């Protein structure tokens, strides 16, 4: 039903680029070898044996439609740099409109590009809430001007995220809504969610669900368990999430609706998703890097960067999430990039807002924490970091002739410390800050244009 191109933004002009002797890895395309790859006018036009393609000067005009007028840029991979399909993040907070002191469309998508993402989906818990077609139109206009990588939008399911009245979902879909979410809050009323699922038959669009039973989570600031008991901080039990996942999966099954579960955090939720999928219900799920890599133990020092919803849970929960991601019970990785200003986080833990930034560190953190120790294969990580697109009925970033260049060049050996040279995001509340990570994004092409190019690349190419 969507009448409008759902993703907007991205830079101009389209790139002309030769990536020479890079190790191309695209598990879906079955590519895992060294190649030369040429991008012309923003599309992948040649994939050849390493060292066989030569750079074209601007005067050698083989490009169609007047593209390729400048000299082609050259990147030497020396057989070492990896070229991956760029990542897709189905869950970010760009804080626009209303909270631009935390992030805006430009800084948020700059962070996305720096993290190797070629597209992101923005959440509607802005001020005002994204819940009407005029607001969606103006946001899309702004994104077309300011966004460094294409952005899709999920307007609210209920007006003002209040849980009482559906938004005008059909009109919003016509204006380019990818789906709907009340993210930041659950749709607490089962009856309200059921109406949204019924209405979905008219308008389509994935219903993306933040699962939290507020009667169970109220008063909590971290995972309920040994650490919260020791610190005297109100706990949020995992059942606050998992009972809602089970309820809403059953509702989706009953209405044959399509729902996506956001930021799973515990073993019980993975079980609920597995059961729903076994029923054949149309559900999908995402998991965040912090839930795959950190636990309640990381909250002991009450570092407010470790405060997020859902909270970091136990080691057993973390293992279940990794297993779920590997098995495909969990479909994709999402960052839940949630920027907050320094002064908002520089307060006692219980007073601090929930959320961590994640776009700039997601790949490096997962590569360091899961791939290097042999817990997850790199190819599977790449698959899960690109899988979010298809869940929202968007084309999956891929390395294929004729495809738009959505590519990420990474140096898997590069060691760096996030934050040591600042951030692209306007905010710095990253739970992986100050840790040594291995694996660094050097270049990102999004929708055919160079959206990010690391300073280190010049030296590598030289």
């Amino acid at each position, binding site marked *: 039903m969507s009448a409008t191109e759902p993703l907007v933004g991205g830079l101009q002009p389209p790139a002309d680029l030769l990536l020479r002797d890079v190790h191309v890895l695209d598990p879906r395309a079955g590519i895992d070898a060294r190649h030369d790859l040429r991008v012309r006018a923003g599309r992948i036009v040649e994939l050849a044996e390493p060292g066989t393609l030569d750079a074209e000067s601007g005067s050698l005009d083989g490009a169609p439609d007047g593209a390729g007028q400048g000299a082609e840029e050259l990147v030497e991979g020396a057989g070492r740099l990896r070229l991956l399909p760029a990542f897709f993040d189905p869950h970010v907070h760009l804080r626009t409109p209303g909270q631009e002191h935390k992030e805006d469309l430009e800084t948020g998508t700059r962070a996305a590009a720096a993290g190797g993402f070629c597209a992101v989906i923005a959440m509607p818990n802005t001020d005002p809430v994204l819940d009407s077609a005029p607001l969606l139109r103006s946001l899309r206009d702004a994104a077309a001007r300011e966004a460094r990588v294409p952005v899709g939008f999920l307007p609210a399911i209920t007006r003002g995220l209040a849980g009482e009245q559906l938004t005008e979902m059909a009109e919003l879909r016509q204006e380019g809504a990818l789906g709907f979410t009340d993210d930041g809050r659950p749709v607490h009323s089962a009856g309200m969610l059921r109406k949204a699922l019924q209405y979905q038959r008219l308008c389509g669009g994935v219903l993306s669900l933040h699962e939290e039973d507020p009667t169970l989570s109220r008063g909590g600031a971290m995972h*309920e*368990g*040994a*650490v*919260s*008991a*020791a*610190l*005297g*901080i*109100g*706990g949020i*039990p995992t059942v606050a999430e998992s009972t809602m996942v089970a309820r809403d999966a059953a509702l989706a099954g009953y209405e044959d609706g399509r729902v996506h579960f956001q930021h799973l955090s515990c073993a019980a939720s993975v079980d609920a998703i597995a059961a729903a999928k076994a029923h054949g219900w149309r559900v999908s799920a995402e998991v965040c890097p912090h839930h795959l890599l950190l636990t309640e133990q990381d909250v002991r020092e*009450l570092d407010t960067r470790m405060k997020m919803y859902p909270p970091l849970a136990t080691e057993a929960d973390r293992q279940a999430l990794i297993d779920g991601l590997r098995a495909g019970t969990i479909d994709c990785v999402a960052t839940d990039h949630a920027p907050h200003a320094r*002064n908002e986080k*520089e*307060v*006692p*833990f*219980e*007073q601090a807002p929930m959320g961590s930034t994640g776009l700039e560190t997601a790949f490096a953190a997962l590569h360091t924490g899961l791939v290097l120790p042999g817990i997850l294969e790199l190819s599977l990580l790449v698959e899960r970091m690109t899988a979010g697109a298809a869940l929202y009925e968007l084309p999956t970033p891929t390395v294929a002739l004729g495809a738009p260049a959505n590519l990420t060049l990474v140096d898997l050996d590069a060691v760096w410390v996030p934050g040591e040279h600042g951030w692209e995001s306007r905010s710095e509340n990253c739970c992986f800050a100050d840790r040594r990570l291995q694996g660094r994004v050097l270049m990102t092409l999004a929708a055919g244009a160079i959206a990010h190019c690391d300073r280190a690349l010049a030296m590598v190419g030289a």
Partner: protein
Amino acid sequence: MNHLISIEDLERADIERIVSQAERFAEVSDREIKTLPTLRGRMVLNLFYESSTRTRSSFELAAKRLSADVVNFAASGSSVEKGESLKDTVLTLSAHKPDAIVLRTPWAGAAELVSRWCSAAIVNAGDGKHEHPTQALLDVYTLRRRLGAIDGASIWIVGDVAHSRVARSNVLAFQRMGASVTVAGPPTLIPRGIEALGCDVRYTLDELHTADIVYALRMQHERMSEMWVPSIREYAAWYQINGRRLSPHQILMHPGPVNRGVELSGEVVDSPQAVITAQVEAGVVVRMAVLYELLAGNRESRPPARPAPAGGRPGEDTAAGTPTPEPVAGGRLA
């Protein structure tokens, strides 16, 4: 020691040193002139974000007995109500160069945070539901005066453990001193995972007779409206320490203020087994010992003291010969 933030940071030897110092101060308290010149010229700032008459005046008295200057700063009616953040308040008050800040807030971890923002010694006088270390120290002191040592003693902490910073500090402190601790109370008020602190958990008082020391916690009335227990009546029926439940050999403690007829019956409050008044008395000498430990006992590792009030001139702080200050953030022992 640079700060007193959590009992978790203390070894048994630290606790014993503070308690022994408190015993020496207690001797002074019995003299006609109770004041010592130990902290003359030092400033203690009481920064309280929660109303607290007892703890604050206990700290104030302790500081004055040691001849320190005391400034009280209450959050209500101040810049805090105008929206100033904790950090800005602390930075602003730090301009007065307090030697110690006694801090009470409704937020866990706030004392630790503040210790990173300024160079004063921080005394945690209660951070949310996390810890209240001077209460635990004065309780250890009280028991030591009464019993000698508490190695091997069984101590039951009874009541609203979930909302009690006293419970958390005391579980740790009593265990450090060699006692075994059991927490007991309604299941809704015993936090999941509390066993990780090393204590046992009971939901009834059936085995209360096995305790050597019974430590009752205050049951706050707002817990009823929040439906943590069905009624005060039912709470008292199951968890009140009364003449029937308290065995003659047991010592009874309570951090105050007592709700007579709720967590304690009137008869046990007034019985010779109760050491509740002794606890209050201990408050002043133990807090004297804490201020002494932080401000007098370890001068060389602290940032330079303010010049003596008599000869102080602006700029003297930076004069040659002043000890080099250590970095603001570097103070706390891991």
